[in-house]
């Protein structure tokens, strides 16, 4: 035995002495990990609870039951009007008349105006659509549920407190009295809020929906995916498989890595200058949004795809080349299928980031107030995160719950997108 080593009997004693300390260190190490995971879970659940508790009420909306007599005189059309005249009729007048009939004692001008405010002006469009679909309704009385104004909605949901002094709340005492009468008469009901999922943005919370932003996000993501996925893979394949290693390829690599860290607002500015000013593409369009997000996503996809390609065992390449496969055949039949799970993971990460991106889209005008639901990638539109930003910025109490509801929809969109990608990745995964 060498001189420096302790005697055999002593060694086990020395090992024993240190054992307690070693195990304690291992336990501490494990505990740190568990604590980190636990903390993340706690904050995540806090986030979900806060969003859900604020937003769930947005999925219900207060409706008022109106009996509207479709009087051609109030409407301002003749007995047999054409469609054009019908489209321009005074449906607001019908709504007001219906409310007056319900509360005949209201005579004062100011009170009348307060009365009219109980029902959303969105009811006018509902009336118009009904009459234009069936002109025979003219002269009859139409009985229908129309959305209440957001203030009424907030009162019913308990967000406007009755015990506050009259001057501090948005509804006057007499308005609350009318609402109570409507509730007593069974003319107010809390129903599922279909408007939230079928309408575009609006200044009135009760008429605002997220469909426009959802469709805008969908179009933007489609543009981003269909550009960044093929370009990213092509670039990664060239750089990893074919490009000679020299100063140029080093230069390109460094630049791609740098681009991945560039703040997204810079890409927005780039898009503003290049796509809008120079190429004169339409403002606020998902096309431009998608292009900007493509620029932003590309580095992520390229870096991930290159790593995935590099991790394919060289033996597979040699096997294919050894039986005379051309480099392209080797790549398409063997290397790429094995790299695909990694490539898809990179794409998911890039797309998820792009979906939640707001800043660059502000620069190219996707922050505009857009009521119409986009029908293509050239239509002006907004996207979910920008819609959340816009609603979070709005003063009306009704938008608070809608902001949370929009966040929920964004999260669901994200989960669906990721789940799809995970399923796709699983089906490509192979062991070797």
């Amino acid at each position, binding site marked *: 035995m060498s001189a420096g080593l302790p005697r055999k009997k002593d060694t086990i004693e020395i090992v024993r002495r240190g054992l307690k300390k070693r195990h304690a260190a291992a336990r501490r190490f494990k505990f740190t990990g568990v604590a980190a995971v636990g903390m993340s879970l706690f904050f995540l659940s806090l986030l979900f609870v806060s969003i859900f508790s604020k937003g769930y009420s947005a999925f219900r909306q207060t409706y008022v039951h109106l009996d509207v007599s479709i009087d051609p005189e109030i409407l301002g059309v003749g007995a047999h009007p054409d469609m054009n005249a019908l489209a321009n009729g005074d449906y607001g007048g019908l709504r007001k008349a219906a409310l007056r009939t319900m509360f005949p004692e209201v005579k004062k001008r100011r009170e009348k105006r307060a009365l009219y405010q109980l029902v959303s002006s969105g009811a006018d469009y509902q009336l118009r659509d009904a009459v234009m679909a069936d002109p025979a309704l003219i002269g009859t009385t139409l009985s229908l549920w129309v959305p209440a104004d957001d203030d009424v909605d907030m009162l019913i949901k308990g967000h406007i407190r009755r015990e506050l002094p009259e001057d501090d709340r948005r509804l006057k005492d007499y308005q609350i009295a009318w609402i109570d009468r409507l509730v007593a008469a069974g003319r107010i009901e809390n129903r599922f809020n279909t408007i939230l999922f079928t309408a575009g943005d609006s200044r009135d919370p009760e008429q605002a929906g997220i469909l426009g932003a959802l469709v805008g996000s969908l179009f933007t993501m489609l543009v981003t995916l269909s550009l960044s996925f093929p370009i990213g893979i092509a670039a990664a394949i060239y750089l990893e498989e074919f490009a000679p290693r020299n100063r140029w390829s080093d230069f390109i690599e460094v630049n791609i890595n740098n681009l991945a860290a560039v703040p997204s607002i810079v890409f927005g500015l780039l898009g503003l200058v290049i796509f809008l000013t120079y190429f004169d593409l339409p403002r606020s369009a998902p096309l431009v949004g998608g292009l900007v997000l493509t620029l932003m996503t590309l580095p992520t996809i390229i870096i991930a795809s290159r790593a995935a390609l590099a991790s394919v065992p060289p033996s*597979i390449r040699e096997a294919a080349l*050894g*039986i*005379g496969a*051309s480099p392209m055949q080797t790549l398409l039949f063997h290397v790429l299928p094995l790299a695909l799970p990694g490539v898809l993971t990179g794409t998911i990460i890039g797309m998820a980031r792009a979906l939640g991106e707001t800043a660059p889209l502000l620069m190219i005008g996707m922050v505009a107030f857009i009521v119409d639901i986009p029908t293509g990638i050239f239509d002006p539109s907004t996207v979910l995160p920008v819609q959340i930003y816009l609603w979070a910025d709005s003063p009306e109490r009704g938008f608070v719950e809608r902001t949370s509801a929009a966040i929920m929809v964004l999260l669901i969109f994200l989960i669906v997108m990721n789940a799809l990608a995970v399923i796709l990745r699983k089906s490509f995964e192979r062991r070797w």
Partner: protein
Amino acid sequence: MMSLDSLLPETGSIDNKTDHKTVAPSFKTVGEFKLKDPRISCQNIVVRYGEKLAINGLSLDIGRNEVLAMIGPSGCGKSTFLRCINRMNDTIEGCRVTGKIMMDGQDINSPEIDTVPLRAQVGMVFQKPNPFPKSIRENVAFGPKIHGFVETKAELEEIVENSLKRAGLWKEVKDRLDQPGTSLSGGQQQRLCIARTIAVNPEVILMDEPCSALDPIATAIIEELIYELKKDYTICIVTHSMQQASRVSQRTAYFHLGELIEVGDTKQIFMNPKNRLTEDYITGRFG
């Protein structure tokens, strides 16, 4: 242990030579490195990995329908030499091969030669079994498919069956052709790789230590297979096992530090080596 330098040919340490033109031809080689009617004739091969010299002016002929075994200590350049013959060294960055490799009157080392048909003609079996992570059938069918050997599915099935039969694997896998090739045992995987090589119908098969990852039973099966294949193919095999070389080959070449030291009839090399380096190696004094 005696100094190796004293045993080396007088050209001295090869790492000092960076210009291959100054390298003397392998006149030091003992034995008949030239053949009358060779299948492949390699002349003055020099291989460099960057600045490192891996093969130093090596000339060796490979005969028709013979099994040529290459032995030698690790890092002596046998695998590198093998990979010259089907240009697999092209895939290694910084690797430069000079010299002539004549096959059917063509220098296959010239940059104008297309490696795709060359590799179909000169197949390769690697050290570690490397089946594609696909079904057994697809593993064998890939080569014929990409080269366009077959037009119908039946023809392809026939090639798959014949190749697996020739590789001695058919009986074991005929009922599970759709299972992944990676699910086979190591020896079966290596035979699958041989079947995959045969399916392309090459003339020369290069084997780079095909049994080094296999147990003795699987090794014996592969050796038998090599013996069978010899009838139709020219086979070059790199091996670390001297018993294997003596069992399967007709000619044996002994490599040492990037040079071909001795080549000749296998029996003669093992029974009566002429060079002392060869003798020391095969008697187990080093390597």
